[in-house]
């Protein structure tokens, strides 16, 4: 009985060792394959992250440029206003007033001359009365235009110039704040992405070490 069982046992043992070896070999091969795949995937992820960093830096440069440009423009507008526009606007409004006053003088003189001309010609006619009335109405309109031109100057001196100054100051402040906020946001984004890249690099190093061990 014993004799009959021995060969079988040996056969079994022998077979079992061979299987284990085979399995071990298979597992080793499969493990190597998985590790290689993981290294490749991680490398790709790292390259992608590095590209994202390049793009992020370029975009941040552009945004910073725009924000600085907006600030420069706002400061330019403010300087322009304080150096020239504040005074020139008042001058321009005073010129408008002069033009309206001249037009009023012209209309007054024309009316006077028209009356003299009609009187001298003495060709009494309703047309003359019609034209004189029109000239008088024109004069009345011109007087209103002069008043409006005067009120435009007062409006500017009392309200307009202060409102304009305030708007331009606000524009400069907004541009400065925007630039600061942008710079903080940029730093945060860069740090975040750098950390991601560092993690990936560390993981990749681990994988490569493991791979070389095996």
């Amino acid at each position: 009985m014993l004799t009959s069982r021995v060969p079988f046992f040996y056969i079994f043992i022998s077979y079992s060792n061979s299987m284990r070896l085979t399995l071990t070999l298979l597992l080793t091969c499969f493990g190597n394959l998985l590790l290689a795949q993981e290294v490749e995937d991680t490398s790709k992820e790292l390259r992608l992250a590095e590209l994202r960093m390049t793009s992020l830096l370029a975009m941040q440069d552009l945004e910073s440029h725009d924000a600085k440009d907006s600030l420069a423009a706002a400061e330019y507008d403010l300087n322009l206003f304080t150096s020239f526009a504040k005074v020139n606007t008042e001058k321009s409004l005073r010129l408008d007033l002069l033009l309206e006053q001249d037009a009023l003088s012209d209309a007054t003189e024309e009316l006077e001359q028209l009356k003299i001309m009609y009187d001298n010609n003495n060709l009494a006619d309703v047309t003359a009365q019609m034209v004189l009335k029109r000239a008088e109405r024109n004069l009345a309109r011109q007087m209103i235009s002069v008043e409006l031109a005067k009120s435009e100057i007062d409006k500017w001196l009392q309200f307009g110039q202060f409102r304009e100054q305030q708007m331009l100051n606000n524009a400069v402040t907004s541009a400065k704040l925007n630039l600061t906020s942008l710079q903080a946001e940029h730093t945060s984004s860069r740090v975040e992405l750098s950390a991601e890249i560092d993690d990936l690099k560390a993981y990749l190093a681990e994988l490569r070490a493991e791979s070389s061990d095996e």
Partner: protein
Amino acid sequence: MNSLLIAALLSLASQQTSTEAQTLLDCERAIERGTTFLLGSQQENGGFSLNKNPVIYDVWANVETNRSWHMATTAIAAMALMVQPADKIRNTRFAHAIDYLCKSEMVKRPDDWDTDNTWAYVYSLCALTQAARNDFIKSSRRSKVVESRAQQIMNELYKYQSPMGGWAYYADETKARTPNWATSFQTAVAVLGLLEAKQLGWAVDEHRLQVAINTIIHCRLPDGSYTYSVDVIPQLDAGVGINNVKGSLARIQSCNLALYKAKQMGYSTPIGKDELVVGLQQLFTNHHYLDIARGRPLPHEAYHANSGYFYFFGHYYAGQILELLPVAEAKQFFPAYVDSIVKTQHGDGSMLDYFMGATGKEYGAAFGVAGLVHAKNGVTR
């Protein structure tokens, strides 16, 4: 040596005489050809150039506007025939035209804004005053009819005298019964007619005439030009405006002539012989502005707002001015004057400065012929 100099001088003198003779010949030929054209275009009723299809050819002128131009053209054509030496055919033809002017229904105001009827009045008055002096008209017992019609026309004309003192052909400024807009040059034509009427002893409203003369003086600018419109405060135009010499070449002639004739009749005006000569010098020095404008289809489209139709109008009065100057002075301008008219003449004898429906060629030829005759009289007295 002396004989050589004399020979050279004689040759030069002979050359000059030959050029003068050629100019005179050109002038006479142009008059003859223009007259032939005018005689050929006269209609059976005695009138010239009635536009029979006004709606087809004109975009804004209504029937009465066309009749206004037609009557004015007839008057100018009659003057072009009357100013020439007496001749049986011409006598018959202008008498027929004068009859037509006297017997036609009075032209009415074409529209509320359009007072082109004033052109018919001013030129009819000029033609009738000329007719009143014409021997054939006098001998053919037309004088009374002529005077009576002229009186009617003057009464109509007075109704359109603006309170500004003169006359114009549009009333769109006010659309009132009496227009307010007035122009220097139409006022000048009216004054010429009224002065002639006064000389004939006809009843003329002296106050209106004096006002009209003052109005032309009022339009005169320091450079010798005249404002286009009668402005309350006349101003010289800088740049390419119309109110300076280059934009006033035709107005200068008509206004100068009117003020000169007024002065001869005792009115106080600033225009004497010297001013007439200066006006002619201005015309021929700057003549290219009128040359550029002649034939252009849009009113006032040339430099200094010159219009094509300024051309013959201005030359007609320039011709009359030449007739008033001493012969030696008239001769200085005569060749340039003749050339300026002769070069415009078409193969059929007509002349055209502006396309104006049926009237363009006829008024052009009539002004051209009449101007040449006056100018020729100026150098052949």
